[in-house]
C-alpha cells in the first residue's frame, strides 16, 4: 500500500496529472450514460411504464382475455367508492399493517436487547431467529394454515389441554379472529427483521455513554428513554418505514391463509385487487384498487426523504 502511494506521488510529479485527470472526466457525461443506461432503461420499461399503464387501465374498461379496451372516465373509481367491500379493504389494510407493526416492535425489542450481548452460540441463535424471514412465505404459510385448521388445529389442541379455551376456535373461519390469525403469521414472519434492525441500532450506541449515564444514577428505564432512544431513533425510523411499506403492500400471506375471507374481513389492497382484477377479470377496476396504495406510499417516501435529508 505504502509503495503504491509513493508511486502515485512520484508519477504525479513527472507526468502532469491534470491532463490525465481530464482524460477520464472529459468523456464522463457521455460515458456515464452508457454505464447507467441498461439499468435505467430496464426500470423505465418494467416499473415506470407499467405504473403509468395502470393509471390508464384504471380509467379503461380493460378485461382479462379481451384485447380491446377504451377510455371510460372515472367509472371504475365511482364504482369503488360505492363498494362497501372496498372501504372494508381500506380499513383492513390499516389494521393489518399497524397491528402487525406494533406487535413486531413490542416483541422485537426485548429480543434485540437479549441479543445485544456476547454469549456462546450467539451466531447460531441469531441464525435460527431469522429463519422465518428467509423461508418463502408461500411455503411457511402452509404450516400456519395447517396449524389453524378448522378440525385438526394443533394450536387449539394445546389451548384446550391448557384449559385456556373451551371449544375449538375457527382461526381462519371467524370474522375478527381471522384478521388476528393473519396478523399472527405476519408478525411471526417479520419480527426477525425488526429485531435485526433494532439490534443494528443498539450496537451503534457507544457503551461509554450508557456507563456514564449509569454513573450519573440513571435507572434502566431512564437510560433507555433519554440515552438509547435518541441515538437509535434514525435507524429505527427508517427500518420501521420499510417494514410498514412491506406490510401494507403484502399479498401472499393474506392470500394463502384466507384469500381475503371470511366475508371479506381480511381483504387487503393486494388481495382485493387480485380478486377483482384477475379472478373476476376486471383489470380496470383492479388497477384502480392498487392505485390507492400510491398516496400512502408517496406519503411514506416524502417523510423518509425529508428525514434522511435532515439527518
Amino acid at each position, binding site marked *: 500500500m505504502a509503495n503504491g502511494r509513493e508511486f502515485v506521488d512520484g508519477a504525479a510529479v513527472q507526468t502532469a496529472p491534470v491532463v490525465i485527470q481530464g482524460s477520464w472526466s472529459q468523456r464522463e457525461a457521455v*460515458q456515464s450514460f452508457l454505464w447507467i443506461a441498461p439499468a435505467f432503461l430496464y426500470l423505465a420499461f418494467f416499473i415506470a411504464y407499467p405504473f403509468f399503464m395502470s393509471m390508464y387501465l384504471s380509467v379503461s374498461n380493460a378485461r382479462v382475455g379481451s384485447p380491446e379496451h377504451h377510455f371510460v372516465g372515472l367509472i371504475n373509481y365511482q364504482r369503488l367508492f360505492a363498494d362497501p367491500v372496498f372501504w372494508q379493504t381500506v380499513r383492513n389494510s390499516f389494521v393489518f399493517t399497524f397491528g402487525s407493526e406494533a406487535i413486531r416492535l413490542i416483541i422485537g425489542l426485548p429480543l434485540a436487547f437479549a441479543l445485544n450481548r456476547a454469549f456462546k452460540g450467539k451466531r447460531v441463535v441469531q441464525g435460527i431467529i431469522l429463519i422465518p424471514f428467509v423461508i*418463502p412465505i408461500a411455503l411457511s404459510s402452509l404450516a400456519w394454515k395447517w396449524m389453524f385448521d378448522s378440525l385438526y388445529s394443533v394450536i387449539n389442541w394445546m389451548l384446550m389441554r391448557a384449559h385456556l379455551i373451551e371449544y375449538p376456535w375457527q382461526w381462519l373461519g371467524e370474522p375478527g379472529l381471522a384478521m388476528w390469525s393473519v396478523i399472527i403469521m405476519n408478525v411471526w414472519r417479520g419480527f426477525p427483521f425488526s429485531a435485526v434492525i433494532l439490534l*443494528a441500532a443498539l450496537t451503534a450506541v457507544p457503551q461509554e455513554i450508557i456507563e456514564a449515564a449509569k454513573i450519573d444514577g440513571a435507572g434502566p428505564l431512564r437510560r433507555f428513554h433519554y440515552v438509547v432512544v435518541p441515538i437509535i431513533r434514525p435507524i429505527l425510523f427508517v427500518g420501521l418505514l420499510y417494514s410498514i411499506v412491506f406490510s401494507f403492500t403484502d399479498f401472499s400471506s393474506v392470500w394463502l391463509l384466507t384469500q381475503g375471507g371470511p366475508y371479506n374481513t381480511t381483504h387487503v389492497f393486494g388481495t382485493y385487487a387480485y380478486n377483482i382484477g384477475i379472478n373476476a377479470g376486471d383489470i380496470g377496476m*383492479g388497477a384502480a384498487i392498487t392505485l390507492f396504495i400510491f398516496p400512502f406510499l408517496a406519503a411514506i417516501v416524502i417523510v423518509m426523504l425529508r428525514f434522511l435529508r435532515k439527518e
Partner: protein
Amino acid sequence: MSAGQSWRRIKRDYGPYLPLSPYLFVVLFPFYWMVITAFKRDNDLYNLTTAPFWFKEPPTLSHLKLLLYDTLFLKWLQNSMVIGVLVVFVTLALALPAAYALARMKFPGAQPLSTAMFLSYLIPPTLLFLPLSQLVRGLGFTDSIWALVLVYPSFTLPFCTWLLMGFVRTVPKEIEESAQIDGCTRFQAFRMIIIPVIIPGIITAGIFAFTLTYQEYIYALTFISASANKTISYGVTSDLIRGDVFYWGSLMSGALIGAIPVAVIYAFSLDHFIHGLTAGALK
C-alpha cells in the same frame, strides 16, 4: 451463601438463553410441526385423542412419494432454481455498472437518478402485477417462465444497485487514481480494481437476488397457469389442494424440501445476509 452463589452461576451460564427460549420455540415450532406432519400416516394425522406431537404409528414415506411421483414437484424446483440463477446474472449485469457510475462518476442528474433508484425499490409488485400481466402478454410470454425471468429483476435490481453503491463507496479513491495514472481506462479500473475488491458485496447482492426471486409469489400466480411452468412457491400451494381436499402430508414435505435451497444458502452466508439486510434498509 452457597445457594446465592449457585444462583449467580446459573444466571451467568444460562442468563442470556432464558429470554431467548420463548422466541426460539415460536420460530421453530411450525417447522417441527411440518416435519412431523410430513411423515405421519393419515390415520395418525387425523387422530387428536392423544398428544399429536409424536408418532403413534410408524412414520411413512407415502406423502413424499405422492409429492415426487404424482406432482411436478421436481420440475417446479428446477424452474425456481433456473429462474433464480438467471435473475442473479441479469441483475448483477445491470446493477454493477449502474452502481459504479452512480457512486463514482460525476454527471448531471446523478443525484436524482440515485433517488429514483431508491424510490423504485419502494414500488411494490402489488402495484404492478396487473399492468405487467398485460405487458408480458403483449411481449408474447404468456404462461412462460421467461416472463418471470424478465420481470423479476424489477425488484432485485433497485435493491442490489443500492447495496452495491454502498460497497463501491468503501473502495478508497486513491487506488483508482493510481490505476488511472498507470493509463487504465475507467472500464479497466472497474474490472481489475473495483470488482475484485467488492466481491463480498457482489456475493451479498447475488444472495439477495436469488432469495427474493425464490420467495416471489404474486407474479408467478398471475403470469403462469400450466403446472409444468410453475415455480416452487406457486406449485406446492396450488397442485396439492384438489377441490376441498388438502394433502397435508405432501404439502408439508413439499414446503420443507422447497425451503432447503434457501436454507442452505442462508446457512453458509449468514453474515453476508445480515449485513445486506441492515445495509439495504439503513443506507
